[in-house]
């Protein structure tokens, strides 16, 4: 069974306990305006140009039959003309031109993920499936998780829970920790900022919590989106209503992944948004405490 991934990130320390390897699956049904992994939106491989790696040798321009490339201080990619033939990637000597996204067999993904199993064992870590939305490639994700569990490795999934419950239910025996976002409590606002309403997400959260599997709900706090006490309180009311082993984390927005929008020729809806001030995050983090919500289990 093949899947499409962007990368396997080793030494992940923010995607579950211990040292982990995180498999980023390509394809997402949300379009969160603040996304720091925009390369995972599309399910297909994409051409990426990283100007910082380019030495301006012109090899790529010379081989581009579609004339989608030209040089103006850096290489400019006209994506409307690009036929995705990949010749530019083949001739690039520095890796400035590359494909984001590769097809990989589940078995091979498991093998790569388990390269660091000694580190998992020493640190209480494991493997995390993230994205994108990993459950969009359910068959592939299932096979990968099964492979990891068969080797005794702890599994976690970061999901936006937009899939129907039967899909999620299918994964219950395979996932030891769920990490799910609830970005905005108000469904209309949720739709405005992510492209979808949150009714199914909230419903799935309730069902998932009720299974008793450890669940960390997370909210990226984004300036102008949900960085008010009222917005956080509304979120806390939802989370406090979940029955099960639930933790709740507020994460401060940062723009570290925004360079990728440029590299991929994508529009960045929140370009120029400053990171959330640490003091503001600290203030807001007191609200979940008032609701009796803990950041860790």
């Amino acid at each position, binding site marked *: 069974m093949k899947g499409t991934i962007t990368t396997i990130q*080793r030494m992940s320390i923010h995607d579950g306990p211990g040292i982990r390897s995180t498999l980023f699956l390509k394809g997402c049904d949300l379009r969160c305006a603040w996304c720091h992994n925009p390369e995972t939106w599309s399910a297909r491989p994409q051409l990426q140009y990283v100007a910082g790696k380019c030495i301006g*040798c012109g090899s790529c321009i010379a081989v581009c039959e579609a004339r989608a490339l030209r040089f103006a201080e850096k290489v400019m990619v006209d994506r409307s003309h690009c036929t995705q033939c990949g010749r530019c990637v083949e001739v690039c000597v520095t890796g400035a031109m590359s494909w984001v996204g590769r097809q990989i067999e589940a078995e091979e993904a498991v093998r790569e993920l388990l390269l660091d199993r000694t580190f998992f064992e*020493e640190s209480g870590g494991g493997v995390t499936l993230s994205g994108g939305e990993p459950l969009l490639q359910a068959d592939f994700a299932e096979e990968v998780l099964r492979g990891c569990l068969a080797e005794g490795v702890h599994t976690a999934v970061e999901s936006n829970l937009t899939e129907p419950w039967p899909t999620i239910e299918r994964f219950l025996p395979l996932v030891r920790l769920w990490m799910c976002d609830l970005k905005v409590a108000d469904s209309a606002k949720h739709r405005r900022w992510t492209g979808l309403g949150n009714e199914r997400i909230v419903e799935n959260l309730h069902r998932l919590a009720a299974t008793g599997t450890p669940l960390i709900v997370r909210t990226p706090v984004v300036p102008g989106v949900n960085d008010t006490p009222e917005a956080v309180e509304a979120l806390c009311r939802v989370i406090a209503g979940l029955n099960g082993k639930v933790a709740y984390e507020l994460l401060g927005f940062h723009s570290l992944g925004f360079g990728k929008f440029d590299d991929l020729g994508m529009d960045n809806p929140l370009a120029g948004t400053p990171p959330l001030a640490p003091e503001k995050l600290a203030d807001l983090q007191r609200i979940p405490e008032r609701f009796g919500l803990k950041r860790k289990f």
Partner: protein
Amino acid sequence: MKDYEERIARLRARKLEQTQEKIRVEGTLDEDDYGRIVPPKGLWNIRPNHPDGSFYGYDAWTENFCSLMAVHPVYIDPDDAFAGRWMYFMSKMRPNKWNPAYPYDHLKANIEKYDIICGIGDDAHFAPDYEMGLQLGWDGLIGRILHYREINDSPEQQHFYDLHLRAIRAVQGWISRHVEEARRQAAASDDPELRARLTELAEVNERILSEAPKTLREACQWIIWYHLASRTYNRDGAGGQIDALLQPYYERDKAAGLLDDETTIYYLSCFLINDPVYWQLGGPDTSGKDQTSPVSFLILEAADRINTSLNLTVRVHDGLDPRLLRKSVEYLVKNRNGWPRFSGDKALVEGFMRNGFSAELARRRIAVGCNWMSLPGLEYTMNDLVKVNMARVFEIAYYETAAAAEPSTERLWETFARHLGVAVHTAAESIRHHLSYQKYNEPELLLNLLSHGPIEKGADASDGGAEYYNLAIDGAGLAIVADSFSALEQHVEREKRLTWRAVTAALQSDFAGPEGEKIRQLLRNSERYGSEDSAGERWALRIRDEYVTLVRRESEPELRRCFIPGFFSWANTVGFGRHVGATPDGRHAGTPISHGANPSPGFAADGASLSLATAIARIQPGYGNTAPMQWELDPTFAHQENVALIESIIKAHFEMGGTLINVNIMDKQKVLEAHKDPSKYPDLVVRVTGFTAYFAMLSPEFRQLVVDRILES
């Protein structure tokens, strides 16, 4: 009055002043800090016994050492619990380090051709048995010599013993001058507190002048004296299992009500600031039982108080007290000063046993040097002295292959392996030459005293006196060679994007011009050593296997000589690099070669720490010598909340086969500013390789190397 904190602060400040003075008077030094201070001008100079201005052999070394001891300045600091500092690099003061009467011209052509650091005539790199010294004291050592002097009665042996007796008496004379000076200063002082301190210092030294030490303070002071004398004699900086050495004294003093922990920490702080000796903490005893004791923790705490250049190593094994490992990682992260480092017991013991030694003996082989392990008092080694510049060997093989009608990586490999064989054999022959004549050049007058064998047999440790001869030959430049093979295989043979001719032309021009740079970038953009399942890693393992075989086959069991391979480049990365032109991994001509067993910087896109830990664990030569992991730990990760994760990486590396981890946690901005103006950061310490050094003491070229390594990690 216990004003220990203030005293330690003053000692630390004085240490920084002394370092600054060293830089001012003597210039930069790309080596260990050594704890040495600047001697007064014109007080002592070497006494040559040869027309070339140098001195050689037992008589001359004894004469020089004893004459120096007779006038060596006394060093008493009222803030310090111990007397003494060393000042003279006797061995470095010679214009020539090898006795011309024993030439090695037959080896020189290949030494030069392959850029081998041959070790002939180099200073001692093996460890004394401090336990014996502490048990016997100076008079006990004299008694031991007198005993064997009765048994071994050849004129040469009688002379051998006489000279060792002279050396001991010279050291005793040096100590007694400290006793006198402490008493004189005490008498001259109006401050009763100071007078008491100086009197106590005099009494401590008076007691150990002849007798074996009885208290913790006396034991520390005894170790300091032996160490300072041996340092002065020939730079010997080897340490020992310091917690186990001091534990009995600590227990006794505590039981007798002579000592509290604050005083112990003060003593240990003074002990550690005296010289950054390579001491091991924790680790198994001969039976496998962990040696961690309260003293292990107190030593760490003392190190934290002085937080200067330190070379403490924590020996990590399955039975290690987890609190010691946790505490040591906490201090590593807190102080970001490159200490402690960590050694991996499992691979070291299993590896050493592959040479035919027992587990009990292997556990006694502890971390006492820059990259090296030694059996205190039992073996003569040439650890960290003999190195083969594999990048240079590769360069020779490359041009020979490229000139052939049909070059290929397989042909290049055969040529490389052949040359590597000659280079390793040359290194081994150099060691043999050294062993044959070192006693006529630079005998081990001081280390013989705390070794098992030389005194018993009346023979120098370098000349059959020692119990074992475990001789190290380290390979350097592994990543350069592996990545070069990989780049050629990938771009010339597999993808056919380059030709041998084009690569050769690019190398010869040092990648000049836009086309040269394009080729360089392509070569750099290869499957590099350090990446999982890469061609670079496959080549590295092939090189490792070949190198290990070549070194091992030099062993001569009938002569008790066991040759042990390692991968280590010490601070020679710069010098070695200078002698090698551009290489097919995209490295520019004359730039430093890769560091020890480390992949070249920038080898992995992410998870660099894990890739590094995995690659270096896998590349170990496997016979009990090290291929250290030089870890530039990301300062944004190195926080207290990640201590458990850092600890788990250390444990995983050792679980996978790693032998030694040297860690730097450097703030990039700070290093850049210090590089611009070192005087602004006089206390910035970096772990250059196995040793730590004050950044300000390094030469600009070496500072650049450290900066590059940190920026590219």
